[in-house]
């Protein structure tokens, strides 16, 4: 029997939402990939005609895992409707701290969920039974049965308890408003938040890193990471050791431009800045927002490709070249990658810059960036909690303009998220969303250029007899995709 030359993988689980990947095979590796987002719900159309502030109810419900990110993008877009030339008013300091905390809880919970529940269980697969590390990985990470699950779920839920105080509930809070947060925090609650984040730090320093956060956050180059992992018993070190054994630094590689919209703003600037990183040049640069467009040449839409502030393609299954509901965002006509790795490359984290300088963006670099962020953001959260002044306002409730164009940009756990809207007399007349995985899992564009995942899958090895190639699993999940956001 000859090897199949095509393979359709789906339903592709342990990603958020539904996903299908079609592979063209050449011998023992992937020659080409096409990524299909098979679900369309139509939030952009649903929002048009509604009162402006209803966006705060609808937008978070685009996604149950990036819910706060969607709220933040919507709130910023609403706050940004202002007369031409007038700067947007900064949030009251407490409003920024509270919003950053709520957003950070979601992003860290997502990183944790991805690492422990979505990504690591693939190393417990029977296909790796002969590997010397398999027994340990299976005991720790087998889906629903490994010893890690009953430790990480309480830690995650404990982290989420910050939401109970700061946001009422998660997902789908309405606490995030254009002018800040609806929930003022008392001194006693501030103390309780400090306790909760201490509990999360303890989990990380016991199980995830088995080391102080500060030690992990300051690892400055790849060899330092490898050396550190050899002396650590934590789950992150387990990943690093497995990754080295499987050479995941050479799997799922891309050499694209990385972009980040900037995350966790404050009076002193964002924790992670906005910008663009080009591995070829090796430095971060200004991000030309007006050069962002969406191409629908290979997606089930009718209408012109264009900038999200103006174009609004409508669904149409008649496009014969289409194979996805995902549009193809491009920056200046070129493909770009987003995510925790992109954020840290733009921010100039020396470890990630070093890893990408050596091998390009890879499965290993994407996972390392995500886990390093858990350390970086937890430490920042401790400072935001301390910086809250319970006597000062959490919200600016002064009236806003009811007509105008705006955009709201932020970073979800899995990358850059933008909302573009127009209001007319207090009603929404235009709403477009570009989510992180829309960038990463985009289909081909009019020039035929594949999206980041489609490029990253080329060359992925196929083991003999595999129908769900495990290497493909690693590459796809390394992007931490969120499919419900992707199409929305």
């Amino acid at each position, binding site marked *: 029997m000859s090897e199949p030359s095509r393979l359709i993988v789906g339903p592709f689980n342990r990603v*958020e939402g539904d996903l299908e990947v079609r592979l063209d095979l050449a011998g023992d590796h992937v020659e080409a990939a096409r990524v299909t987002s098979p679900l369309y*719900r139509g939030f952009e159309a*649903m929002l048009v005609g509604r*009162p402006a502030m209803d966006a705060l109810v609808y937008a978070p419900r685009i996604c*149950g895992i990036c819910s706060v990110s969607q709220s933040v993008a919507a709130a910023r877009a609403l706050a940004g409707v202002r007369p031409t030339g007038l700067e947007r008013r900064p949030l009251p300091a407490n409003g920024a701290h509270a919003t950053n905390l709520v957003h950070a809880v979601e992003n860290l919970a997502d990183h944790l969920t991805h690492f422990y529940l979505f990504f690591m269980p693939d190393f417990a697969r029977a296909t790796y039974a002969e590997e010397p590390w398999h027994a340990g990985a299976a005991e720790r990470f087998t889906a629903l049965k490994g010893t890690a699950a009953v430790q990480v779920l309480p830690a995650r839920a404990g982290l989420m308890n910050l939401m109970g105080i700061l946001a009422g509930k998660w997902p789908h809070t309405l606490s995030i408003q254009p002018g800040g947060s609806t929930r003022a925090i008392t001194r006693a609650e501030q103390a309780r938040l400090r306790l909760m984040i201490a509990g999360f730090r303890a989990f990380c320093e016991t199980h995830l890193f088995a080391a102080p956060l500060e030690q992990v956050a300051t690892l400055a180059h790849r060899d330092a990471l490898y050396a550190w992992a050899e002396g650590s018993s934590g789950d992150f070190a387990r990943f690093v050791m497995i990754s080295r054994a499987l050479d995941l630094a050479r799997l799922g590689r891309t050499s694209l431009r990385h972009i980040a919209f900037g995350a966790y703003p404050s009076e002193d600037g964002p924790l992670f800045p906005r910008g663009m990183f080009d591995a070829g040049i090796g430095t971060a640069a200004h991000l030309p927002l007006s050069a962002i467009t969406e191409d629908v040449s290979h997606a089930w839409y009718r209408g012109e490709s264009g900038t999200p502030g103006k174009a609004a393609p409508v669904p149409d299954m008649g496009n014969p070249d289409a194979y996805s509901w995902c549009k193809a965002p491009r920056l200046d006509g070129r493909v770009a990658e987003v995510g925790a790795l992109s954020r840290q490359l733009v921010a100039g984290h020396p470890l990630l810059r070093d890893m990408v300088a050596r091998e390009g963006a890879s499965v290993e670099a994407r996972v390392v960036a995500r886990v390093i962020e858990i350390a970086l953001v937890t430490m920042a959260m401790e400072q935001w909690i301390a910086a809250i002044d319970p006597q000062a306002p959490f919200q600016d409730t002064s009236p806003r303009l009811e007509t105008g164009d705006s955009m709201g940009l932020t970073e979800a756990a899995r990358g850059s998220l933008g909302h573009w809207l127009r209001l007319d007399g207090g009603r929404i007349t235009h709403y477009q969303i570009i989510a992180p995985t829309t960038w990463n899992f985009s289909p081909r564009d009019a020039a035929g250029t594949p999206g980041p995942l489609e490029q990253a899958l080329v060359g992925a090895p196929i083991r003999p007899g595999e129908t769900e190639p495990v290497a493909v699993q690693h590459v796809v999940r390394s992007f931490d995709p969120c499919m419900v956001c992707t199409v929305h």
Partner: protein
Amino acid sequence: MIAPTRPQRPLRLIWLQSGGCGGCTMSLLGQQGPDLVTALRAAHVEVLWHPSLSEATGAEARAILNAAASGEEPVDIFCLEGSVIHGPNGTGGFHIMAGTGRPMREMIEGIARHATHVVAVGSCAAYGGITAGGGNAVEAGGLAYDGTAPGGLLGAQFRARGGLPVINIAGCPIHPGWFVDTILQIAGGTMTPADLDEWERPLAYTASLVHHGCARNEYYEFKASAEQPGDLGCMMENLGCKGTQARADCNIRAWNGSGSCLDGGYPCINCTGPGFEEPGHAFAVTPKISGIPIGLPTDMPKAWFVALASLSKAATPRRLKENAARPMPVVLPRDRRKGGA
């Protein structure tokens, strides 16, 4: 009394997601005391497949689901999260199940018709939910309802093999406790039609109004109202709060350890009710006729409400008047014996 006995074999659970956001699963992962995995073990539930939690993918997953849909392998509990998608033009093409080329609703229906219990997890799966908003261009519906109209994918007369209608754990999202209570009741053999309300939601959480246990109750009693989101006062008069009509125990059973929407400083939007996605007004603004809110508390005669409201407004203590339209109290309760007012 019949003591619930441990079944001979584990209860086999399959979970699918369609036209939704995955937020009910994410909320469920926040289950505390004990965690979700321990709770499922306590209910003696074996997860055959869940899109976020299972190892099996692609062909392995299709084999499990096909066996369930054909009746080959028994399924005790079938959970759907997200609405059933029928569009465009009744084709189901807006959600083709990955790897199959078939509309997702076919797999949903196949498994539902063979399962012992069918559970709609969240308002989308129950009634259509937010996915049915804005004119419902994607033709989203629930398992046994389209909005408030009985029917849905399975039909108004549908009964699962075990004899119960679709159990609608409505909410956007669900509280993890609502799901765990339901599963434990199913596992214990104590879930009966008498345990469900008129929309087939578990009474375990819909015997209460969101109003019950609301920390703003004193403001409600004296009609001391919030003016902006984040103010301390009652949010019914100005901010669209539906807590006096909405059915859920959100202020009795805390969210994420200690919270609720109202405690978070924003109104209840009745997310457990069919049709909540189209309230007919801006969500956070109370519609009024000659200054009187249209949506009065459940069971309350309008004339009495108006009479009592004007009386209680006249009797509002200074403390509530001063605090209602602020995010932090300026006047605190004080014991008269220490010179309080």
